[in-house]
């Protein structure tokens, strides 16, 4: 048992749960080949593992397991009211993977899902078919990396690349790949496509250190975003969620100064600005899971089932950043989320 003393937790993806129906699926086989020493546990349905009662997010996050499954039922969802549509009329998102390898204390996934383990749906072809069906009716703005961080999982599942190839074949499809990742190898090999927007979520380094565990630093994220822009990729910067910390003004000012030093602001597609807000039900779950997390124990205001910072503070924070951004880019490129 000497291993237990030294490093008590199993390594990430030490166990992979695989739905029987996808065991021989090509994507499942490819992913499993990445983990030759993992214990493979066959399951009937991913929810048998993912939706067990009384799971602990903080403990599972120390040693996340991978679940390979087939997505059934609804494959495309309409964008939620708390999400920014960037002026797109047909705003949808897909969930080809659930949960994230990063461990941000304020992440809504912790309130939405009963488990911290990662589910990857290997039947991406079915999602593509559903998207194509919708594209026959109207154009589509599709967020493919909402319930996960696809670029952070790219070396294992390669889905960002698959989405890029798919988007390249469909002119009336615009996809957003949102990330906190600094996947330099992806950035170096990326083929720029006008219909694929890479959206980097940015926070001051103090916020990253306090709440966004295991994520790349601000410098790393900006450097990756810069590299992708230089390669010709459309890049969006998301100052969303803005998180309250004492001295937030100084931190956000310093962050913006660094952004302007490292990024050619004239070449970015757009930016989003929004303070932290979350469904009341998710927040309740998160507080139960994380009783010692300052960021989610903030005394929020409630409105229509959503929790947000007090109106004054929300206004102050968003106006501050928006005004600063207006000095760097045109107003039309700034999308501020409003209740």
């Amino acid at each position: 048992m000497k291993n237990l003393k030294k490093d008590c937790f199993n390594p990430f993806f030490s166990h992979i749960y695989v739905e029987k129906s996808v065991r021989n699926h090509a994507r499942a086989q490819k992913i499993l080949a990445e983990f030759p020493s993992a214990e493979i546990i066959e399951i009937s349905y991913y929810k048998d593992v993912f939706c067990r009662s009384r799971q602990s997010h903080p403990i599972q996050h120390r040693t996340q397991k991978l679940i390979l499954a087939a997505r059934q039922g609804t494959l495309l969802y309409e964008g939620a009211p708390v999400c920014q549509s960037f002026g797109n009329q047909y705003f949808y998102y897909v969930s080809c993977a659930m949960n994230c390898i990063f461990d941000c204390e304020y992440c809504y996934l912790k309130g939405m899902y009963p488990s911290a383990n990662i589910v990857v749906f290997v039947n991406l072809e079915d999602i593509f078919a559903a998207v194509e069906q919708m594209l026959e009716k109207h154009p589509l703005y599709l967020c493919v990396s909402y319930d996960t961080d696809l670029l952070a999982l790219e070396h294992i599942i390669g889905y960002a690349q698959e989405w890029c190839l798919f988007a390249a074949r469909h002119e009336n499809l615009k996809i957003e790949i949102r990330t906190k990742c600094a996947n330099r190898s992806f950035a170096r090999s990326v083929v720029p496509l006008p219909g694929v927007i890479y959206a980097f979520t940015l926070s001051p380094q103090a916020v990253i250190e306090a709440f966004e565990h295991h994520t790349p630093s601000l410098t790393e994220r900006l450097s990756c975003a810069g590299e992708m822009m230089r390669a010709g990729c459309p890049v969006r910067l998301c100052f969303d969620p803005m998180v309250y910390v004492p001295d937030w003004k100084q931190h956000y000012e310093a962050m913006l100064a660094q952004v302007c030093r490292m990024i050619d602001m004239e070449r970015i597609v757009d930016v989003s600005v929004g303070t932290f807000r979350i469904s009341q039900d998710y927040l309740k779950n998160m507080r139960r899971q994380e009783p010692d997390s300052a960021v989610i124990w903030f005394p929020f205001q409630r409105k229509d089932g959503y929790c947000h910072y007090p109106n004054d503070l929300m206004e102050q924070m968003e106006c501050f950043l928006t005004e600063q951004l207006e000095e760097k880019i045109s107003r039309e490129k700034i999308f501020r989320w409003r209740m």
Partner: protein
Amino acid sequence: MVYIFTALYCEAQIFIRQFKLVKNQENTWLQEFYNESAEIRLAVIGVGEIAAAAAVGSICALYRPAPGDLLVNVGICAHTAKNDGIFLCSKIIENATGKTFYPDMLYRHNFCEGTLVTGMLPWNGENAAPAGNLYDMEAAAVYQAGSRFFGPHQMIFLKIVSDHGAVGEVSRERVLHLMEKYQDCVLDYIGQTAAITQTGSCRRNSPHQEEERLVETICADLHCSKAMRDSVRHMIRYLTLAKIDYVSVIQDMYEKKLLPCKDKREGKLRFEEFKERLF
């Protein structure tokens, strides 16, 4: 606290001896042993799913396990091929219903891992071979009853192979021998897993006595209603977690005679003022 459940007394003996457990004489419906200082409670739950579920449910309802507690089910089992070995179960199938249960596999260990089938009757080697490679008569029931009180990260199922279908040959002496053979690795694993779980739980639920005293004083001086008291408590919780120096603001309010307040109306104003000074 570690709750150990074994089907047989001879499976429990290594724990009773090692942890110096004493019998709870007040418990007359099942054999229960404990050592409060070692934080171990053991129950001999009997053979079969119904006996196991009843006993686990009864013990857990009585003692109300905490988030840092562990449930451990240890005992002998059959194996479809092997005659020996110890297994940590990663999947448990209830034979009667086909339901499956998955304890979290969180910690490093040196055991083999396996799928365990729980049946109503002993596996005699002549029945159709069970879907898994291990076979017992309690684990699925222990999991189901235990899951009312424990999360999957708090449940451990360790099974020692006693036979491969020749249940009649498994004597009390053989069970004792097998338990003793594996006792070091079992005790080591339980001890260290319990320590990790307990440490995590203490860190997460550390008492905030000083904070609570302060909340009580402020609430009294603000003449808080129940709803306002909850708001104050929440605010202080947040300020403590965020390491914001609210104590000096409160002290300053006392020095300026803004606190204590004369009534609830003034209390509301002062609380708003307190928030404004902090944000």
